[in-house]
């Protein structure tokens, strides 16, 4: 009986938290929109802001993916094949971009590519308000992903396989080996990385909002500023647009994620075949390789450098004023409270999302091997928990805004409204770390504990959790980082100065007219967020089990 309750709890919570609000929101959207879904989609062409948004989003995502793969693959190759000095530091630097919160990256790129930036002035590069700028930012972000996912595959290939390949007629030339030996090894990971890059570019909000110029709308941005969404009788156009884009996004993202699970399913068969160090060739690196790697490292860190640098200048002059004002409590954009809020939300996200992910992962891994309804239930639960991956941040925001607030108006005022968004978004990340770890844990540990007379609770707390300590910590750190950087949904749900988070504050400070110090304070906030995130990830690296390197 207790087991039944245990296994239904995660499902109930997930339904309450994720599924129900969205279904309510969808219903409400359909009501508020005065036309049906098909007409809503065909109307998109007739509207200024939405005309071409779908096409632009797809184009942007496709180009970003191509760009990322063409730069990421060679980098992953070099990292996997050669042993560089300070190898793990180089890898850390190259993979850092991925964990940088979107608003921080946005600030960095504005400083790097904007009209008065270093690049513009020294190289006369007019990249401001162009799609190129956004593609560059996306590439910067996602090359880290390619390196992280593909490098291990290259690094771990058993060297004897390659030696045999060289001896075969099909393997005498490098390009032939690349095709016959290396391509099969990396293609699934590369495909997974490419799909993820597509998904992240597809739902990009902060970057498009600030780097894209007037008239450059992807779906996320076009959906975002729609205040009358969900309101019946007024501003039906807003609901119509959100409905149309929401459905389109959902379909495309679900397809992408289905592809992703396919790739990762099929990729399960390969295992690390050798320890890392032994397969890396200690070849002398050519000058041009060193130069390119150096450029890659510089490119990875440049936006971050400019973010921090910008915090020390006010209206073009070097000054500590921004930092001082930020930590006083007088200015509108004083940072102490938002910093505390951001941390509070993050800590709460961890405290709630990780145990919930644990419960869900436990149910899934236990029940999926049983017969009949149990196995089906496990599958459904798995999909439900992962569903938010197919939702963009703005969609999550609207889901909560319309869905939950429909239940009670006063929910709109609670300080923890954005927290729900953070939970929804963090839960799948935690699940993706905990579930594989649970699945690969030898069940005999738990069985042994039971034959030693341990109660269920004792088994969980004295054996199960300690054995999964590493993945649990990684899941916690991931959930924390997701919450720290969350922007789209929080921005939509923000309603009171008291509960602003740092990313939302950066956006508002940056958009504030007349106030030069506001811009610099935005840099300060971005720097703070950056430092916190980096500290977290350095800590997380220590807890990764080597077997987990194929995931993010």
């Amino acid at each position, binding site marked *: 009986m207790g087991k039944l309750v245990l296994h239904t709890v995660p499902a109930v919570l997930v339904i309450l938290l994720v599924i129900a609000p969205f279904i309510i929101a969808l219903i409400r959207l359909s009501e508020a929109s005065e036309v049906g879904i098909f007409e809503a989609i065909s109307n998109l062409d007739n509207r200024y802001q939405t005309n071409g948004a779908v096409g632009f989003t797809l184009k942007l995502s496709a180009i970003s993916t191509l760009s990322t793969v063409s730069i990421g693959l060679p980098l992953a190759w070099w990292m996997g094949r050669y042993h560089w000095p300070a190898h793990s530091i180089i890898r850390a630097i190259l993979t850092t971009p991925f964990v940088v919160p979107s608003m921080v990256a946005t600030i960095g790129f504005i400083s790097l590519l904007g009209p008065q930036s270093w690049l513009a002035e020294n190289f006369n590069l007019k990249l401001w308000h162009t799609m190129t700028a956004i593609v560059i930012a996306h590439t910067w972000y996602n090359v880290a992903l390619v390196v992280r996912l593909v490098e291990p595959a290259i690094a771990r290939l058993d060297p004897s396989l390659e030696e045999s390949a060289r001896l075969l007629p099909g393997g005498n030339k490098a390009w032939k080996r690349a095709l016959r030996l290396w391509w099969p090894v990396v293609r699934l990971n590369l495909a997974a990385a490419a799909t993820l890059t597509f998904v992240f570019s597809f739902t990009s909000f902060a970057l498009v909002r600030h780097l894209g110029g007037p008239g450059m709308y992807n779906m996320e941005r076009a959906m975002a500023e729609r205040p009358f969404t969900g309101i019946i009788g007024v501003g039906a156009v807003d609901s119509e647009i959100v409905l149309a884009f929401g459905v389109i996004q959902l379909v495309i993202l679900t397809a992408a994620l289905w592809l992703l699970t396919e790739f990762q399913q099929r990729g399960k068969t390969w295992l690390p075949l050798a320890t890392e160090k032994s397969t890396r060739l200690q070849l002398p690196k050519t000058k041009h390789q060193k130069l390119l790697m150096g450029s890659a490292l510089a490119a990875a860190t440049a936006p971050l450098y400019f973010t921090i640098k910008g915090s020390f200048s006010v209206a073009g002059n070097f000054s500590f004023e921004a930092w001082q004002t930020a930590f006083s409590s007088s200015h509108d954009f004083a940072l102490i409270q938002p910093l505390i809020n951001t941390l509070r939300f993050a800590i709460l996200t961890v405290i709630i999302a990780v145990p919930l992910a644990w419960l869900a992962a436990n149910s899934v891994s236990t029940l999926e091997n049983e*017969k009949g309804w149990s196995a089906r239930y496990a599958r459904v639960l798995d999909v439900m928990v992962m569903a938010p991956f197919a939702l963009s941040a703005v969609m999550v925001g609207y889901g909560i805004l319309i869905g939950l607030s429909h239940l009670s108006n006063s929910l709109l005022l609670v300080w923890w409204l954005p927290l729900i968004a953070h939970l929804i978004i963090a839960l799948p990340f935690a699940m993706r770390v905990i579930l594989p770890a649970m699945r690969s844990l030898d069940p*005999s540990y738990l*069985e042994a504990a*039971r*034959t030693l*007379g341990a109660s269920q609770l004792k088994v969980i707390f004295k*054996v199960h959790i300690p054995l999964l300590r590493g993945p649990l910590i990684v899941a916690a750190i991931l959930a924390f980082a997701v919450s720290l950087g969350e922007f789209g949904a929080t921005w939509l749900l923000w309603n009171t100065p008291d509960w602003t988070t740092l990313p939302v504050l950066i956006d508002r400070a940056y958009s504030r007219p007349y106030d030069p110090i506001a811009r610099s304070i935005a840099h300060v906030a971005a720097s703070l967020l950056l430092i916190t995130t980096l500290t977290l990830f350095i800590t997380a690296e220590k807890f990764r089990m080597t077997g987990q390197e194929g995931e993010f």
Partner: protein
Amino acid sequence: MLEVKNATVSFSGKLILDAVNLSVGDSEIVALLGPSGCGKTTLLRYIAGLEKGSGGEVLIAGKDVSNLPPEKRSVGMVFQNLALFPHLDVAGNLAFGMVIPEAEKIAEMLGIVNLAGFQERKIETLSGGEGQRVALARSLLAEPTILLLDEPLASLDEDLKLALAEDVRKILKDRGITAIHVTHDRQVAKKISDRIIEMSEVTQAED
């Protein structure tokens, strides 16, 4: 002491145990002999409560434990892969099944299995034979009514195997423990048990 009646267990439609009957007397050590894959481990797991069957019952000391979970059956089990908890040291592992952990009892047991002073050793530093003995000690300290041993000596080399088999028998006999030892090695079976039961006698599941 132990009675198994009509144990029937299937996995994905395949019948592994077909109306198996088994009984073991008080303080008796029984060896279950048979080739791999014929259900010996499954039978042990069934007795321990780790596997569910359809119909059939398990009686321990006359009491029907068929509907009890493993932790309530007072059935100890030494697993084939030992399943020693890597996050605890030897003493931590030994104390795990004790209702009230007592350092003297732990020290005493370590002495009995010839691992005196091993309390603070880490699990990963133990050799095969040492691990076996810690696993055995751990199960014994939980004071089970029945002890099940699932080919615990299988991964050791010949000499060590037989030596340990003798040691294990002595320890079990000294304490009057009722035990079932599953193995495919007839030599070990002979060394360790009072009675050998061939799996083929006990059940004939369809291959």
